[in-house]
């Protein structure tokens, strides 16, 4: 402390002498120079994240500017834009388009399913019910990702519970009709885009509920009452009051659903068709094909898309809702 330093010790017996010993000296030093303590506290995490994480991201970026020698299959460590050129082949553009479409649809569906849950939890649930709703969202969120996918494999299998249920309800014609459609259909739900879509929505839904609920909890109840006092129907209140105020929360949630769908490669691999998504393309390029530069270039796609997405979300005020 400055007082301690300014006064000579002999004339001020009320002030303790230096603590002595290594521990005391260190303690005194940190007290006099909080900047030093701050530096020491920040150094390990910043070094770790800076070297391990940021360093790896740069390694990734660097790799995307290398190219693969088509004859030897070896990586040519020279700067080139050839790999990015390969990225814009029709087949690869198809993969990108397919993934972005899926991510957009999943985000939309999650928002629609999440809204009533979040709205009920934010406005009507109290006390014990509130805790129940909270755990009701938190437990599926934290349950094992693979087990959740596995559960859907059980449900969507041809001999599984869904077929059984529809047979009991005499609705099998509906399932067969849907499966015979092009693109969304297939041999069974577990090898169709419909199945992939359902599982994506299921796995990412909690990521949408939480920010929407947080946004709705900040809407003052009297605003909704005022709207109906002024003669608005519930539908009008929703369109003109509730929805605009909840929108930042929805956008915040969509960051997760969109980004997670863009990068996932396990769900479409286990439940879905043989047509690839970005994540699968990355995985197969770096694994079986051994083309790490192209895999790296592929990962730059979701990073760029998410960059634009985050920029747009920030402008809509979504970060305040996180």
């Amino acid at each position: 402390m400055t007082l301690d330093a300014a006064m000579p010790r002999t004339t001020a017996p009320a002030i303790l002498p230096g603590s002595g010993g290594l521990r005391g000296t260190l303690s005194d030093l940190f007290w006099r120079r909080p900047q030093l303590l701050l530096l020491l506290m920040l150094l390990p995490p910043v070094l770790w994240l800076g070297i391990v994480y940021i360093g790896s991201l740069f390694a990734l970026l660097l790799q995307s500017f290398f190219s693969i020698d088509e004859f030897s299959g070896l990586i040519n460590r020279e700067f080139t834009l050839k790999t990015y050129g390969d990225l814009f082949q029709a087949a690869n553009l198809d993969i990108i388009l397919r993934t972005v479409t899926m991510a957009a649809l999943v985000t939309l569906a999650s928002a629609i399913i999440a809204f009533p849950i979040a709205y009920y939890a934010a406005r009507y649930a109290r006390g014990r019910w509130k805790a129940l709703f909270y755990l009701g969202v938190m437990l599926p969120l934290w349950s094992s990702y693979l087990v959740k996918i596995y559960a859907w494999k059980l449900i969507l299998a041809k001999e599984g519970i869904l077929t059984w249920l529809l047979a009991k309800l005499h609705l099998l014609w509906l399932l067969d009709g849907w499966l015979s459609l092009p693109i969304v259909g297939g041999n069974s739900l577990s090898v169709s885009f419909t199945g992939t879509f359902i599982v994506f929505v299921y796995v990412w839904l909690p990521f949408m509920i939480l920010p929407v609920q947080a946004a709705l909890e900040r809407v003052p109840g009297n605003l909704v009452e005022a709207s109906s006092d002024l003669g608005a129907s519930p539908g009008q209140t929703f369109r003109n009051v509730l929805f605009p105020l909840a929108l930042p929360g929805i956008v915040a949630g969509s960051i997760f659903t969109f980004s997670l769908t863009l990068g996932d490669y396990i769900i479409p691999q286990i439940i879905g068709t043989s047509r690839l998504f970005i994540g699968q393309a990355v995985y197969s390029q770096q694994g079986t094909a051994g083309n790490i530069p192209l895999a790296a270039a592929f990962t730059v796609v979701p990073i760029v898309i998410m960059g634009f997405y985050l920029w747009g979300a920030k402008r809509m005020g979504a970060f305040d809702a996180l």
Partner: protein
Amino acid sequence: MRSDRGPSAPLGLKIAAACGLLFLHLPILLIFVYAFTTEEKSFVWPPPGLTTQWFAVTWNRPDVWEALSLSVRVAAISTAIALVLGTLCAAAVSQTRFFGRETISLLVILPIALPGIITGIALRSAFSLADIPFSFWTIVLGHATFCVVVVYNNAVARFRRTSGSMIEASMDLGADGFQTFRHVVLPNIATALLAGGMLAFALSFDEVIVTTFTAGQQQTVPIWMLEELIRPRQRPVTNVVAMVVVLVTLLPILLAYYLTRDGDQIAGSGK
């Protein structure tokens, strides 16, 4: 805060919310039924019969035990590293204001904000550029990196609620920095650290996307499960392991919730 009980929800909303919650929970409950089925070859529903024999079969499978042991060791060490780094970072960010504070928060959150595949392939390309062979430690390196954020979130929330005057009072009463940390700061943040640690453990125990890029031939439990999902060998064993994994991850989440529920910020909302 309203004092009355509040209006009752419209029926349509109640039904939609209930259906949404059922949609979230029924698939997980289904896992518990399938762990007891007698059917070996397919996913037929309803199960033709119920049995507990698969628990014994799973118990005697060395590959399951090896995967479990590796997962627990990786999760324990990653959690320990994340606890140290996350607490240090949280203490620095919440106790002082300095230039670049926002950047530090962003740096901590980034590994979990970007899709896992990016973290995974970034680490893999770094290992390949630096010629680091895959090992136990490459798995830990990846896991610890994204576990920091969970500890950090919990610790920051708690530091925000802890008043700085307590630390000053301790110093005024003659405690040195280490004593203040041991007797004042630590008891205050202990439950938040415990909650963060448990969530980090659960996160690491369940992680598969980054692990596929940073593990060599070794199998953690999620990698083992992924292998079984792609090339099924013995489905009933997978069913039992799935059920055990659900239970193992459930407990830390519930505990973390009870440890932090009185706070304004509850653990786990930032997976």
